[in-house]
């Protein structure tokens, strides 16, 4: 009973704050609504009893990316600035396309009968996750792990190079 209540609470929070994120006129408020969405998602992971993923979601998404976004908002726009929205015709067309796509997908999902596998709640500790993540044997994920680490390094260097102030030649 309690888990259902929590699930619907988090689900409603996700949908409402997602809508506010994309419709709010104030950019900084939109970023805070995005933070609420990400925290509610972490709540859903807790409800699935995946504690490690919820912790990663909270630290990396809610703690890292949202702070980065808020920093860049403060650097590039005034707090009281109101965002310009698309013209009405374009908004209506986008809404129509989005609602059509969502309806189609929801109908497909609700018609398909997923059969959940039976069994008790699995329990993984972080050691299992880490061991399989860096294992190079069967079902190991060492290669994607390495590729992602190289990607992160490249993104870090790229971000520094792009955002660096150019040295002006003319004085």
């Amino acid at each position, binding site marked *: 009973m309690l*888990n259902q209540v929590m699930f619907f609470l988090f689900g409603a929070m996700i949908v409402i704050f997602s809508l506010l994120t*994309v419709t709010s006129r104030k950019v900084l408020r939109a970023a805070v609504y995005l933070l609420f969405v990400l925290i509610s998602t972490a709540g859903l992971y807790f409800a699935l009893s995946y504690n490690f993923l919820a912790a990663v979601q909270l630290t990396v998404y809610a703690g890292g990316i949202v702070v980065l*976004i808020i920093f860049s908002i403060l650097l590039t726009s005034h707090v009281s600035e109101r965002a310009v929205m*698309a013209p009405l015709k374009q908004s209506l067309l986008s809404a129509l396309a989005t609602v059509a796509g969502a309806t189609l997908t929801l109908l497909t999902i609700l018609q398909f009968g997923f059969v959940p*596998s039976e*069994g008790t709640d699995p329990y993984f500790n972080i050691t299992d996750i880490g061991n399989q993540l860096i294992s190079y044997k069967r079902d190991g994920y060492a290669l994607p792990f390495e590729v992602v680490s190289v990607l992160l390094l490249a993104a870090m260097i790229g971000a520094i190079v792009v*955002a660096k102030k150019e040295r002006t030649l003319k004085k």
Partner: protein
Amino acid sequence: MIQNIPLSYYLVISTLMFFIGIYGFLTRRNLITMLMSVELILNSVNINFVAFNRYLYPQQLEGHFFMLIVIAVAAAEAAVAIAIIINIYRNFKSIDVENVDEMKY
């Protein structure tokens, strides 16, 4: 912990989040808010991976790894995108997509 909650409820939530993100991407005119819509889309995909892992293959960990890798890619993407946005702001004094048409043919 997941009794009485069918898998499709999770999928419904993530579908709504995905299409709200697409709507935001299509209607927003500010580069940072467009980036936030992309984060919504990536996050909805994560919910799908994790829910499928929990309901259909509870003894395996594949959904965990996909979710962790998607988060890493999202973080890298946000860092690079914000570097580009700050550079655009430095050159154009605005991060509105309507004003940035220097390279448009």
